[in-house]
């Protein structure tokens, strides 16, 4: 187990380094400089800004400086919001995005899993059919479309929930639901498939031959084993929730981190783009790492080697 964790850790670190390096060179390879779009700056002023930020240094030198700073946790100043560090922007806006993401996960996980189990148990009956249909539809409708639709239906037309912003609990309902729905649909599908796979296994027959009740078989034997494949999908799910926050924040005008990412790209705000890329990348790598560990804990075949 220790070996397994160690291996995952090394891979994670290499990944982050690779990401930082690749995005650094990619961004620097773009033509133009970030100050071009500021029409108020003359060419000389642009050059002075470049010098100030060290953007006129040789590329390799810039790279090492950046890496060194990175290791110290310093991601520099935003080239757009010139008096704010990348870190501070992240610190002030990411908690909101994280809040949205966590709420969605908290809603989607229990409901999605429960529906998956219920649908597998009542296979072929009405509730299974409904769950499968709803799940397929849920998976096919992107979260931003669902979000727009919900906003239109409940906020604009029916006027029972706020249209945008993130102030009260009522404000959190629509964005959370929008983000949670497709996640829930995926979970239902995967859990259902996993449960059906498990029920065909021999050890379920053994459990039945022992005289255990259906309920106990499902709970102690089926669900635990069915969760394992679902757990491996948790990483990509967190990813899609994270990506989803970009668009949901846009639709509902929520002051999260997503808008900064998009704007920094179109505005050639190098430090911001770099910083956010590394931040998101690191976050995801870390999340995947945690999922790997959880997987190792839950499946005793990995946790305990002979």
């Amino acid at each position: 187990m220790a070996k397994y964790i160690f291996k995952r850790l090394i891979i994670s670190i290499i990944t982050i380094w690779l990401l930082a390096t690749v995005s650094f060179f990619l961004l620097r390879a773009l033509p133009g400089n970030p100050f071009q779009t500021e029409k108020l700056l003359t060419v000389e002023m642009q050059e002075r800004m470049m010098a100030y930020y060290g953007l006129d240094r040789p590329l390799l030198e810039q790279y090492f400086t950046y890496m060194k700073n990175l290791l110290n946790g310093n991601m520099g100043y935003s080239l757009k919001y010139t008096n704010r560090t990348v870190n501070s922007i992240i610190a002030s806006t990411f908690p909101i995005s994280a809040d949205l993401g966590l709420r969605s996960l908290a809603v989607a996980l229990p409901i999605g899993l429960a529906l998956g189990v219920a649908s597998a148990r009542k296979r072929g009956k009405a509730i299974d059919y409904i769950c499968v249909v709803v799940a397929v539809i849920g998976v096919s409708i992107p979260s931003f479309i669902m979000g727009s639709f919900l906003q239109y239906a409940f906020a604009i037309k029916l006027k029972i929930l706020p249209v945008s912003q993130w102030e009260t609990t009522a404000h959190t309902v629509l964005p959370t639901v929008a983000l949670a729905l497709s996640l829930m649909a995926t979970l239902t599908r995967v859990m259902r498939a996993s449960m059906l796979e498990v029920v065909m296994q021999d050890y379920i027959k053994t459990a039945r031959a022992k005289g255990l009740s259906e309920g106990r078989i499902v709970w102690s034997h089926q669900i635990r084993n069915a969760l394992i494949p679902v757990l491996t999908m948790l990483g990509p799910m967190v990813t899609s929730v994270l990506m989803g926050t970009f668009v949901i924040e846009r639709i509902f005008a929520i002051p999260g981190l997503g808008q900064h990412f998009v704007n920094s790209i179109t505005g050639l705000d190098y430090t911001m783009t770099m910083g956010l890329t590394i931040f998101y990348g690191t976050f995801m790598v870390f999340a995947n790492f945690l999922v790997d560990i959880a997987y190792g804990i839950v499946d005793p075949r990995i946790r305990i080697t002979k």
Partner: protein
Amino acid sequence: MRERILEIKDLFFSFDTYAGEVHAVRGVSLYVNKGETLAIVGESGCGKSVTIQNVMKLIPTPPGRLKGGKIYYCGEDITNYTQKQMQKLRGKEMSMIFQDPMTSLNPTMRIGRQIAEGILKHEKISRAEAKDRTIQMLGKVGISNPEKSYKRYPHQFSGGMRQRVMIAMALVCNPKILFADEPTTALDVTTQAQILELINQLKEELGTSVVIITHDLGVVARTAERIAVMYAGKVVETGIARDIFYNPKHPYTSGLLESMPSGGSSKTLTSIPGIPPDLFAPPKGCSFAPRCKYCMKICQEIMPDLIEVENQHSVSCWLMHPQAPKHELPGRKSRVNAQNIREGV
């Protein structure tokens, strides 16, 4: 007459598939006396597993369908028992072990717990007591260091050990009858012998009746007091072990015995030509007719009934008809060590 723990009468069971109805069991009658071992022998697909799994109602219906017949356990008619009623019997009165010990145990649950949960379901004792009994049972089946093994997971054991765990799990509540569905097929020869010996030993100790399903006559020779031979969903011959081995009356049984390789002889291996019939459209006469050396016209037209020809020896074959020509069917004459065949009653 000895008490019959289990009696199956005229069981008909089919599977409804997209391609039609598969007649898996076509009128099977069997019984098991108290304290004895019955072996059910036959090729793959002859219906032996389906018959026995039917007793414990482990086959999902759909696609399975009970078409007719009766099942009696200790005299009580359990044919139409619901799943809830069966749950009271399973594990406590009757239990089953399966072929593949690799997949028959829950990989994410410690084996001690898997055994203990069976006890706790049927008996009102404390967890600690259940644990003690489990550890005792583990020792009985030959698992070394039972205390430590209680906490282990299935993947930490070898195939033979896992099968021992399965046996422990099946016998821990002291059931009256144990069904063993090909218990040694997935094991190597030495382990096979050990497991069979263990089953025999525990059977003596606990007074359990045993039904062993197998296609391997060697296994039968080691364990069975009575034998039932099945072919294409029907019982073709049944009797005590001696009679079946030395004096088989059905051509199929005789063919099976002939094809058993005997150690150290230079005789060529014989086999029964042909393959079993497709159970989508079972033939109208005797199902073995196309492959039978002694086939007669009547055999292709009408299915022979199962009748008792001598003490406890029943056969389903037209050769038993008084008008039929007499044949001496080859059985195992002298090549099998007499001591290996268990003495039946």
